[in-house]
C-alpha cells in the first residue's frame, strides 16, 4: 500500500514577510486605538493558514486578559485557558517560550484545553510570546484546523507578527496614557488633507499647539526649499509607515499593487450626520468602500471622548440605501470596540437587506452589534 508524507502546513497562505510587515504597519495607524489594533493583529494571524483563528492575550498589570480574537472559536479557547489557569497561550506568556501542539487529539500537556480544542475542530496550536524590551507583555496564539506541524516559514511569520504587535500595542497604550496627545495623533492620521495630518503628527510628537506645529512645518519647508506638501507627506509617511492617502483618483502605493480608492467627494453618496442625544451618527445614502475613510473618521470621532459605561452609541441607518462589506466591517469593529469599553453600539432601523448582509457575512462571529427598530 502506498504511503504519503504528511504535507506541511501551507505557510503564509495570503502573505509573504514583506507584505506582512507592511500590513501590520498600516493597521498600526488605521485601527481604532490599541484594542482595534489587537483585533487587526488577531485577524492577520488567523489568516496565515487556511481557516485559521487567532487570539491575543495581554498581561494587564500582571493579569492575563484576552484583548482580541479573530472569531468565536479563538475566543472560547482563550476563555477555557483563563478559567483553567493553564494552557499553551498562558505558558507562552509566563515562560517566554514558543509553544506548539502539533496534534490536540494526542497532546497530553493540557487535557482540558486540548479536548475543548479538538472538539471545536482545532487540531494544531502555536503560541508565541510577545516581547518588548526583554519583558513578555503578551502572547499571540494561532489555532489551525489541520493537525500537521507548523512549518518554519509560518513560525517566522508568527514571530514577526508577535514582535510587531507587541511593540505596536505598547506604543498605542503609551499614547493613550499620554492622554490627548494620542487623540491628536489619531485625528491627524485619519483626516485629510496631508498637511493637517502632518500638523497632527507634530502636535502629538512635540506636545505643541496647531499654530506652533504649522510654523515648524513652514520653517522646515522654506529652510530646505521644499514644497510644504512634500514635507508634510514625508512626516506622515515616517509616522505611519505608509504614504498618505491620495484624495482623488487611483494611485499606486509604492512596491505594491494595492491602490487607494477615491474617497469623499469622488462618490459623495454617503451623508454622515453627528447626533447628540443619543450620541451617534446618522448615515444616509450609499456606503461603499470609497466612503470607508469618511465612515471610519465619523466612528473614530465617537471614541475620542470615551463613551460612559452604559451609554449607547447609536448608528441610525434608516436612510441608508446600500452598504457594502467594507463599511459593514467598520460598524462591526466599532461595535467590538464599544463593547470593550463597556458601552454598546446600536444599529437603529436597519433594512432587511442590511440584516441579511450581516447574517451572510458575520453570523458565525461573536457580534456585539445590537440592532433595534426605529422609533
Amino acid at each position, binding site marked *: *500500500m*502506498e*504511503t*504519503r508524507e*504528511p504535507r506541511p502546513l*501551507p505557510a503564509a*497562505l*495570503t502573505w509573504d514577510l514583506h507584505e506582512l510587515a507592511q500590513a501590520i504597519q498600516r493597521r498600526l495607524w488605521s485601527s481604532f486605538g490599541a484594542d482595534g489594533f489587537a*483585533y*487587526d493583529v*488577531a*485577524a*492577520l494571524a*488567523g*489568516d496565515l493558514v*487556511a*481557516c*485559521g*483563528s487567532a487570539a491575543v492575550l495581554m498581561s494587564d498589570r500582571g493579569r492575563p486578559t484576552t484583548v482580541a480574537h*479573530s*472569531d468565536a472559536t479563538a475566543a472560547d479557547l482563550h476563555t477555557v485557558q483563563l478559567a483553567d489557569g493553564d494552557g499553551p497561550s498562558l505558558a507562552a506568556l509566563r515562560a517566554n517560550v514558543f509553544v506548539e501542539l502539533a496534534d490536540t487529539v494526542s497532546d497530553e500537556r493540557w487535557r482540558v484545553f486540548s479536548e475543548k480544542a*479538538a*472538539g*471545536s*475542530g482545532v*487540531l494544531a496550536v502555536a503560541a508565541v510570546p510577545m516581547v518588548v524590551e526583554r519583558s513578555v507583555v503578551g502572547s499571540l496564539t494561532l489555532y*489551525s*484546523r*489541520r*493537525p*500537521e506541524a507548523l512549518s518554519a516559514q509560518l513560525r517566522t511569520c508568527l514571530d514577526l507578527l508577535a514582535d510587531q504587535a507587541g511593540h505596536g500595542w505598547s506604543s498605542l497604550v503609551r499614547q493613550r496614557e499620554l492622554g490627548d496627545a494620542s487623540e491628536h495623533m489619531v485625528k491627524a492620521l485619519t483626516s485629510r488633507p496631508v498637511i493637517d495630518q502632518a500638523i497632527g503628527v507634530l502636535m502629538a510628537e512635540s506636545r505643541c499647539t496647531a499654530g506652533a506645529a504649522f510654523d515648524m512645518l513652514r520653517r522646515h519647508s522654506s529652510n530646505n526649499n521644499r514644497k510644504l506638501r512634500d514635507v508634510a507627506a514625508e512626516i506622515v509617511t515616517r509616522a505611519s509607515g505608509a504614504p498618505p492617502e491620495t484624495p482623488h483618483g*487611483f494611485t499606486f502605493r509604492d512596491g505594491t*499593487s*494595492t*491602490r487607494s*480608492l*477615491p474617497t469623499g467627494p*469622488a*462618490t459623495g*453618496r454617503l451623508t454622515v450626520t453627528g447626533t447628540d442625544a443619543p450620541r451617534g451618527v446618522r448615515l444616509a445614502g*450609499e456606503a*461603499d*468602500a*470609497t466612503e470607508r475613510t469618511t465612515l471610519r473618521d465619523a466612528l473614530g470621532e465617537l471614541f475620542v471622548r470615551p463613551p460612559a459605561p452604559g451609554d449607547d452609541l447609536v448608528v441610525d441607518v434608516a436612510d441608508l440605501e*446600500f452598504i*457594502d*462589506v*467594507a463599511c459593514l*466591517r467598520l460598524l*462591526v*469593529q466599532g461595535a*467590538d470596540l464599544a463593547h470593550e469599553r463597556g458601552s454598546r453600539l446600536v444599529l437603529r432601523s436597519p433594512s432587511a*437587506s442590511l440584516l441579511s*448582509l450581516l447574517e*451572510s*457575512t*458575520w453570523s*458565525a*462571529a*461573536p457580534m456585539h452589534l445590537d440592532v433595534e427598530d426605529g422609533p
Partner: protein
Amino acid sequence: MSTGVVDGRSGHVHEALLYGSDEEFLATTVPFLCEGLAAREPTVVSLGEEREALVRDGLGSDARHVSFLRDGAQYGRPSGAIEAYRDLFSRHVRAGARQFRVLGALPPAATATTWSWWARYEAAVNLAYDGFPVRTLCSYDTRTVRDEVLDDVRSTHPYLTTSAGRADNPDFVAAEDFLSRPAGGVDPLEATPPFAEVLDPLPAAARDAAAAAGRASGCTATQVRDFVASVSEVVVNALVHGQPPVLLRVWAASDRLVATVADRGTGPRDPLAGLVRGSASARPGVGLWLAHQSCDHVVLGLDPDAFTVRLVVGETGH
C-alpha cells in the same frame, strides 16, 4: 483493509469513483460503506434519489445504520456545501468519532451547467476538509458526465477508487495549481452586445449599471438586489487588489443577469477565496464570499492577460 488512519495520515482522504454501469457503482460503493459500518464509523451518503435507492437495495438491512442526507440541501452552492460539510464533520469530531466517511454525488445541474464553480469546489475541499479524519468518495457517472468534467475530476482527486480498491491518482494536480488554470463557464449571453460596459467604474457607477440591467431583465427585486451587491463587491476587489484597467460588462435577459469584471491582475492567491467564510474582522475575501452566497454561479477565470470574475443570477441552465 484500511479503516481508521489511512496510509499513515488521519486527515481528509479525497477519492473519486468513475463508473460506467450500475453494477460498477454498487461493486465499489457498497464495500466502501460496509467497511465503514464494520469499523463503527459514522457513514454518510448524499446522492440523488435514484442512486440512493440503488445503494439502499445493495446494503439491505445495513442501510438503517447509514445516514442519508437529503439531496439538494447539501449541494446547493459550493460555499454552502463546504460550510455544511465542515459543520457535519465538526459535530462528528465533537461526538468523539475518530474516523468517518462520506459517499456523495453532485446533482445533475452541477455537472451540466455550473460545473466551473463545482470544479473549484472539488479542488478546494482538498484544503478545506483537511484536518478532518474523513474519507470522501465522490461518484461520477461516465455515461452522462461530459469529458471536460471527467478531466477536472481526475485533476482534483488525489485517489481513484474502483471495486479493486483505492489507488494513487497520477493525474492529480495540487489544489493551488488547479485553481490557477483558466476556467470555462462562459454564458451564451456574452456573445451578444452587453447591456452596459463601464471602464474603470467607481463602485457606485457599477451599481448603477447593474441596477439598470436589473430593471431591463425579468429578474425579481431580490435577485436584482443580490446582483447589484455582488457586482459592487467584485468591482471594489478589482479596483483595490487588481491591476488596471478594470472593465465591467453586464447583460440582461428575461431569466437572468450576467456580469463580468475583468482586470489585468492575477486574481486572489488564496485558493479558497470566496468558498469559505472569512474570520470576523479579516479584510480580504468577505466580498467574494458574499458573491458566492448571493449568485447562482460564480466563475473565477485566469487567462494570460486578464483575471475575470463572472457572476450569474437567475437561471443558469444555458
